[in-house]
């Protein structure tokens, strides 16, 4: 009963181009969504979040878009940099401190 799905296990993008990571969810009660970034041998670190009252949140090179009717969110990274190579996890919760449900992650590789 995986409620948060990231269907692309990996993504390769050239440096300077846009990276688009997708995430789908099934639980309509989710109202808080987050992206975490994880480097090898480290724990995930918080990247950006969005609540269901918004459809876009931007922080520097990172923008998260939320489409509630489609139960879909995406993370845009522009321009992509080599340091962005990592695994990105989508997560969702009911309330801003409810139990987090994570997707399986998308491995991003930024090539020179």
């Amino acid at each position: 009963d995986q409620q948060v799905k990231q269907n692309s296990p990996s993504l390769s993008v050239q440096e300077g181009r846009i990276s688009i990571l997708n995430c789908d969810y099934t639980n309509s009660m989710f109202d808080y969504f987050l992206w975490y970034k994880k480097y090898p041998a480290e724990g995930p670190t918080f990247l950006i979040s969005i609540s269901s009252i918004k459809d876009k949140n931007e922080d520097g090179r990172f923008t998260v878009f939320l489409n509630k009717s489609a139960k879909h969110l995406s993370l845009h990274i522009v321009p992509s940099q080599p340091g962005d190579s990592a695994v990105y996890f989508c997560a969702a919760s009911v309330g801003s401190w409810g139990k987090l449900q994570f997707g399986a992650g998308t491995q991003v590789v930024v090539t020179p």
Partner: protein
Amino acid sequence: DTAVSQTPKYLVTQMGNDKSIKCEQNLGHDTMYWYKQDSKKFLKIMFSYNNKELIINETVPNRFSPKSPDKAHLNLHINSLELGDSAVYFCASSQFHSGHYGYTFGSGTRLTVV
């Protein structure tokens, strides 16, 4: 000055053994968590403690027992280890009402049961 530290980083043990993973945070957070990342890479919550009180207890086998001696520590003890327990276990902490952007994860403990 590590914020959330877990020990050991790697643990290889035989089936049937009992083992513990320790977690400590120096952030002054009041809530701590254990997550399991399985072979399919999903991160799933196992337990959560707020001020030493258990507040989330997901459906995990009774062989897993968390212990929180104080709000800076949350240890995970596993009895009678099985092959399926092999995974990466992450500890995390947060200040309960700060929301998930306040989550800080440890670097993980890779448990291999042979």
